[in-house]
């Protein structure tokens, strides 16, 4: 047994309102850069829907993840090592930009620059790839809220599959439809197929917390990982020619902060915590024959942090005491293995994903209520879950490789929790028969309620910090002003885009600050052509346009005012065009 720690996430889909705040904040934090315009480390899909990139779940086409070969051995679906190397010159199955979408911006300038005329100026969409006018035909969430599902709904690979297996069970007629949101990040799998696909060995799993990262120095842009990941959560930065992926916000997690997507989640549906798992058992667990047993196999890999023998082994492996303690208090372990209400996304890909989902129950309750039943009575709810086969089958394809009973069991627990707590809220004695009906006791059910409904910040996020004695390693190495090439070398180098040694952040900040202090003009003056952006103006100089042209008073020569100090402490991002 080799005990390792793994940061995991659970998302309670019942609470997701599809606001995309997680996506937006993640994009601002991580992929707001050239080359990653089309990249969303976190995206929120409406299901049923095609997802992002389109139909990524269709592994017959995209060849992601693992499969068992004739001999029951785990092999990459896209082919073995030799086949991968032979296909290196043109990756055989790699999504193109059109499978994601062509990123765009709008020509906002014409809105203010357009000459006076009869027509209103229009901000045309401009492609961020070619810079030319573009026609927007798709996006990262084009089918948000079932948009266009009457026409495109059948293109959802899960819909396709469920329909194949049970004639026309999924309908998109208004009265019969259903939907829920599925936020997705990298699964930080225990058995990642992206890593196995990487010819350079640039993708690695951190021993300490299991976060899967791409070494940007070692990546050579062979693109095999994009094919390898069945969730299509590795993206090719077309500007740097390197693969990029969700980082689990490791700089935040290392200091005990939740990821950006979790921190900003409006519905507070995300849980972060540790799993302890047996690294030696992963391959065997991923190789079980029946895909529907993969869930159980994955459960077995997760170790009980309260078990003294596990703790002893963890100590022997050098896992610090506070990490073992955090694993004991881990909300994700509780939801996944103690309460067994969180399910992995697509276990059939055999990657042992570590981002888990509590399947949504809400449509069931709403439906019962609309039909005039007591939507939160346990008996009614249990019956309704069985009656509502459509979502359950759909959910089963997502979370349990098609095992509908497993999903039903989870939904029953959620229904039981509602019903049980409703009784308590109404002042009745706790009805122990309700938890018993789903194989739980009252105490556990109450704790589950605390975690899922009250969901205090410190209970949702139990993140042990990286160790202080290692903190120095996390700092920028060396004196960053001493680097070669000197200050002023920015953005691009002679060997193509983004090559060369990029400027350390400290140098960049230093330069920006010095430029501001010594320049006589206000930031952004050239690009604004005479107008002043007061948001960027820090009081340095008197930019032309600040006062009317025909000044009644003598114009002051622009220059650093003697009294004007360094001004704002923040370097001006606005200086860049």
């Amino acid at each position, binding site marked *: 047994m080799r005990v390792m720690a793994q940061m995991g996430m659970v998302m309670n889909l019942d609470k997701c309102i599809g606001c995309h705040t997680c996506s937006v904040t993640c994009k601002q934090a991580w992929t707001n*850069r050239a080359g990653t315009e089309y990249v969303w480390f976190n995206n929120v899909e409406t299901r049923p829907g095609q997802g992002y990139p389109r139909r990524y779940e269709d592994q017959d086409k995209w060849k992601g993840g693992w499969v068992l070969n004739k001999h029951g051995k785990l092999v990459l679906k896209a082919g073995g090592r030799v086949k991968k190397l032979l296909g290196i010159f043109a990756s055989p199955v790699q999504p193109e930009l059109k499978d994601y979408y062509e990123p765009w911006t709008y020509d906002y300038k014409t809105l203010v620059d357009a000459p006076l005329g009869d027509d209103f100026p229009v901000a045309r969409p401009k492609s961020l790839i070619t810079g*030319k006018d573009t026609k927007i035909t798709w996006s990262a969430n084009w089918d948000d809220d079932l948009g266009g599902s009457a026409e495109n709904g059948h293109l959802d690979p899960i819909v396709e599959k469920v329909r194949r297996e049970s004639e026309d069970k999924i309908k998109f007629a208004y009265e019969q439809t259903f939907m829920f949101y599925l936020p997705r990040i990298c699964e930080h799998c225990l058995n*990642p197929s992206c890593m196995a696909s990487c010819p350079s060995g640039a993708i*690695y799993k951190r021993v300490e917390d299991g976060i899967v990262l791409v070494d940007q*120095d070692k990546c050579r842009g062979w693109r095999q990982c994009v094919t390898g990941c069945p969730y299509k959560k590795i993206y090719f930065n077309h500007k740097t020619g390197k693969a990029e992926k969700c980082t689990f916000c490791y700089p935040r997690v290392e200091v005990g902060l939740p990821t950006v997507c979790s921190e900003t989640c409006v519905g507070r549906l995300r849980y972060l915590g540790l799993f302890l798992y047996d690294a030696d058992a992963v391959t065997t667990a991923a190789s079980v024959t029946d895909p529907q047993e993969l869930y159980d196999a994955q459960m077995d890999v997760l170790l009980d942090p309260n078990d003294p023998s596990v703790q002893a082994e963890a100590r022997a492996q050098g896992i610090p005491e506070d990490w073992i303690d955090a694993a004991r208090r881990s909300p994700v372990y509780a939801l996944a293995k103690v309460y067994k209400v969180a399910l992995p996304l697509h276990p059939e890909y055999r990657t042992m994903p570590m981002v888990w989902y509590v399947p949504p129950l809400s449509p069931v309750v709403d439906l019962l209520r609309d039909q005039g039943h007591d939507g939160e009575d346990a008996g009614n709810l249990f019956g309704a879950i069985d009656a509502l086969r459509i979502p359950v089958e759909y959910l089963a394809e997502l979370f349990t490789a098609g095992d509908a009973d497993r999903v039903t069991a989870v939904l029953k627990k959620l229904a039981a929790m509602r019903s049980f707590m409703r009784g308590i809220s109404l002042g009745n004695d706790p009805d122990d028969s309700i938890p018993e009906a789903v194989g739980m006791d009252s105490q556990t059910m109450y704790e589950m309620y605390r975690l899922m409904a009250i969901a205090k910040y410190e209970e949702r996020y139990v993140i042990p910090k990286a160790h202080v004695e290692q903190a120095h390693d996390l700092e920028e190495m060396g004196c960053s002003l001493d680097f070669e090439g000197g200050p002023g070398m920015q953005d691009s180098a002679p060997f193509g885009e983004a090559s060369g*040694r990029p400027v350390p952040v400290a140098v960049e900040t230093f330069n920006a600050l010095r430029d501001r202090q010594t320049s006589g003009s206000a930031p952004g003056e050239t690009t604004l052509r005479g107008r002043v952006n007061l948001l960027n103006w820090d009081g340095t100089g008197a930019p032309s346009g600040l006062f009317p042209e025909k000044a009644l008073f003598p114009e002051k020569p622009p220059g650093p005012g003697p009294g004007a100090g360094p001004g704002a402490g923040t370097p001006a991002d606005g200086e860049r065009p």
Partner: protein
Amino acid sequence: MLAFETAPGSAAEISALDVVLWGVLPYVMVVVLVGGLVWRYKYDQFGWTTRSSQLYESRLLRIASPLFHFGLLAVIAGHFFGLVIPMAWTQAAGMSQDFYHFNALLVGGIAGVGTLGGIILLIYRRRTTGPVFMATTTNDKTMYVVLTAAIVFGLWTTLASVFEGEHGHNYRETVAPWFRSLFIFQPDLAAMAAAPFSFHLHTLVGMALFVIWPFTRLVHAFTAPFHYLFRPYIVYRSRDRDRGRAGSAAGAAAARTSNVAARRGWSAVGTRDRDTRNR
């Protein structure tokens, strides 16, 4: 050495230009190539990539890129066979000159035409696909010129020998001995000087290609991922204990580079480097 035995011509015919071109230049080329590679590996790991444009366009690339790359691999194998293996050896193995010549022309011709066709298709794709052309730097364009020239001139030497037939030039008596003699630091200048102009041209352009190699996107060839065949599928690395070192594969290299100062390996959306600075 063999090289000297087979060398036709005499020392008297060697001009100063020959000494520079065939005696000095090859070593300068090697110094620049090796030095450049070492330098770039040390200082520009982040820029060391294929810079694939498959994300933009895949249909043409799927044909052109394998055609070019596999063709090139065959061409390299052909060069090895022609330059490194002495004529005496193949004759000793019972291979007649005619048979060798026929094979070299057939295989070399096919490989050369494939490579040329591949690169023409790739350049066509690069020029006509908007996003791919936008992502093409001056550096890339220079590289394409030299690379294409090397292929065209090389193919010319092959095709020329087809039309010249039996009277064609036997490079295994001139270029090959010179090539081998370079490795013992006694360049057989006379042998190379005796080769026809087409071979001189191809050799010079070839050397130019190797000189610019480390400074272009061609560097990706030097990190061809053969170790993928042997490394374990799952790679663990420690954040702290061996910071930046690969747990299993190619660890030493990564460890060296991980101490390079923290970097800003990106530029903001809408930056201009792709639009102008590299054209």
